[in-house]
């Protein structure tokens, strides 16, 4: 059986799938990062604190107790008509 030439590069090496090449491109890029790694660490720590810790311990989602869009809009209308009630 003959090999499928469309999958071969000039040197006889097998062509990589386009998705593999893209993943490889990013993988090599991220691996070779120096400054970028420090930046990513800073960004991830910050996002974790902001999105997880603060949300969990400090803020309640004001509209979360209301399940349906109608209930949510009812709550907002109440605020618009009677004013915002603070905790």
């Amino acid at each position, binding site marked *: 059986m003959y090999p499928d030439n469309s999958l071969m590069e000039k040197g006889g090496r097998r062509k990589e799938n386009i998705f593999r090449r893209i993943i490889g*491109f*990013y993988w*090599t*890029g*991220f691996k*070779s990062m120096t*400054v*970028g790694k*420090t*930046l*990513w660490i*800073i*960004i991830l720590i*910050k*996002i974790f*604190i*902001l*999105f997880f810790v*603060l*949300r969990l311990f*400090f*803020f*309640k*989602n*004001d*509209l979360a107790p209301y399940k349906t*869009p109608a209930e*949510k*809009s*009812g709550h*907002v*209308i109440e*605020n*618009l*008509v009677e*004013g*915002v*009630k*603070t*905790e």
Partner: protein
Amino acid sequence: MILTSLVEASRLQFALTAMFHWIFVPLTLGLGFIVAFMETKYYLSGNEFWKKTAKFWMRIFGINFAVGVATGLILEFEFGTNWSNYSWFVGDIFGAPLAIEGIFAFFLEATFFAVMFFGWDKVSKRFHLTATWLTAIGANLSAVWILIANSWMQYPVGMEFNPETARSEMTDFWAVVFSPMAMNKLFHTATSAFMLSSVVVMGISAWFLLKGRETEFAKKSMKIAAVFGLVSTLLVAYSGDGSAYQVGKHQPMKLAAMEGLYDSEPGTPLVAVGILNPEKTVYDQREAMLFQISIPQGLSLLANRRLDSFVPGINDIIKGGYTYIDNEGKQAIAPSFEDRVARGKIAIEALADFNRARQTGDTEQMEQDRRVLKENFEHFGYGYFSQPSDMVPPVGLTFYSFRIMVMLGGYFLLFFAAALYLLCRDKKGKKDFGSVRWFLYLSIVSIPLVYICSQAGWIVAEVGRQPWTIQNLLPVQTAVSGVSASSVYTTLVIFFVLFTTLLIAELKIMFSQIKKGPDGIK
């Protein structure tokens, strides 16, 4: 009192996040294009010098880009946590531009950002250059959609409020996108970001020249930055004039605050330099200014394009009764504060009645209430006010921020013109640019000044439009989430510590990369 405290805390927190975000963003908007110019030079000439130069500035771009993305995410997070009524009320109007920004512009820049950084020697020169240009364009497209959303808040067009859902529904997408307020704002903001980036490139390059390092790199970078900066600053002035005209048409109270103008007359002067009377309040008889140098009829020309026209002051807007051109281009009589409040209360009452009628299934009453609400909706937000001072923004902060922005803008025009003159003399062999040390020091000092100028611009735009989150429709006290003020203050402190730490970390990374110079970039 508790609500006031909550509103103040929430505003302070949002302002803090937005100001930190705006430290990083403007540099990426302009630096992306500067890098793209440099890489184009490399592509056309094949000269490795330009590749090295582009790579150095690309790294500065990358550091800012990464940190800017993180702070931008937090801003969107705060819409939900601190401003839930507002987020619900703006509905799809705000959602559509932000979604387009997220799906289209952000993914465009994020995709090509990777090629730009990881793709040297892995993709063809042409493809890499395309990726660099697309990253620069994508960063600016992101800003376009955010600014369209912001402009809509200052001049809400192309929408209709649905009392059943309590949401604003978009009736005309193109009216939102191409509103004159949006066009001017995005042109003014983008060009000011280009100006900022040019000053940063000038300042960093000047540091190299003062150190006697990378002379060719520094001079050529400065040349590109000076040309880009001068053109941008001229465009900033042009679009600033357009922005002021739009503010005069749609946000007269903001313009009055920008000028510290209380009681006006036809042929209104423009205050060039002035000191506000800190004792002055609405309706008292004190002089508004302790000292001023004014341009006769300047404000009339700026706001109405006519020297003898009337530009209302704060007290005039409260009193009403003057003629103005409305949004449909017709002459109209301005309503007084009391008229607006009365109509606002009618609109709020109609919303309450509509809601009650809906619960009982009284469709006839619902239609009647819907009609009353629609007739009075343009004054909806005034129904929450009890005294005239409620509709007046902080005058001092708006007035001085406006003057700082304009004066520094004028300074940067001279700065770039001087830089080009000195660089031309250097090219002709008359005087080495690197020996003009006073200008090099001035270039470094100009870096913090350009950031002050840029932040002052946002203070004018956002503080000047207080007390509104959406002009005439939703004041801050109704837009805020019903969370506890202490929670917001606690997170405000945490945010401040975090942001400051992040800024220090970013500056440290940036300085270490600058010190390495273009030869230190692999």
